[in-house]
């Protein structure tokens, strides 16, 4: 497939993904705003930590989607995926996933009297999120490599 054709497809798909991520992130934020105060009142005190944990995790999820929408907006606008801004955006998503992995632990530590920290607990807390963060860092490096190729291509032309 020709480079210009691929660029057109990338632009179109970026527009679709950008819109979906934007809409979902707004929905998630709205669900937190409307549900959190009600849930805190309705459910017994014992489950409040879980509700807080869930609300923070949802906010972080919305933030991830918002940054993703930003990345795809930039790709849609320029048609170029390999830029410094996008690389940093992917890294920031990785950072958000690390925070999301640590959130359950932090909330439990804040609201419980017992000692909640410890290496095994930390590992179990958000192993999936840490794994995704690692994969995203890998993607960021691949994008850096892509940026070098893009620069070479621009200089040649």
């Amino acid at each position, binding site marked *: *497939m020709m*480079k210009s054709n*691929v*660029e057109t*497809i*990338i632009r179109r*798909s*970026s527009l*679709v*993904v950008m819109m*979906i*991520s934007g809409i*979902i992130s707004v929905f998630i934020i709205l669900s937190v705003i409307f549900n959190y105060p009600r849930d805190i009142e309705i459910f017994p005190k014992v489950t409040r930590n879980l509700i807080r944990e869930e609300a923070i995790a949802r906010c972080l*999820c919305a933030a991830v989607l918002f940054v*993703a929408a930003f990345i*795809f907006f930039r*790709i849609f606008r320029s048609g170029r*995926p*390999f830029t410094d801004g996008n690389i940093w955006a992917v890294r920031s998503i990785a950072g958000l996933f690390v925070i999301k992995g640590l959130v359950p632990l932090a909330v439990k530590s804040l609201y419980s009297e017992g000692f909640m920290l410890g290496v095994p607990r930390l590992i179990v807390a958000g*192993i*999936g999120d840490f*794994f995704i963060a*690692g*994969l995203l*860092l*890998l*993607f960021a*490096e*691949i994008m*850096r*490599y*892509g940026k*070098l*190729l*893009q620069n*070479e*291509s621009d200089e*040649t032309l």
Partner: protein
Amino acid sequence: MKNEELTRKIKRLSNFSLVAIIIYFVLNILGFFTVNKSYIIDFDDHSMPENIIGIISMLTVVFCAVAGAITTFMMLNDLSKKRTPFTLRISCLMRNLGIYLIILDIAKAIFVYIAAGEVIVGLFWFAGIIFYAFSLVFRYGKNLQKESDETL
């Protein structure tokens, strides 16, 4: 050379991710033993067509999960061994992974609906769309790589 340094870094990270995905996969398999009972189909409570759809969707979930894990494994393996991350094979593997994730989420939603009567839609389908979009980015990278190789 900055190019070679980056390639080495990508290979190292891919190797690390490869080990991580194996550990993650094993942990997920162990997680099956602690499955919530409310999401197990009781065949006596449902009609025959519901049971059949439930079994098909469950098998689809298992197939997509295993296929997705194998595809990820193959992709990371390729990333850690190939000279460049931008190849047609990696782009196709990424596209397949996206498709598996989308099908997995749809099948999971159907299964949970039949088993527990709840409509739960996760974000796997969205991750699938993102992977699909990234596969296009990789195809673009493949063209850049080709240009770079031809220039040299």
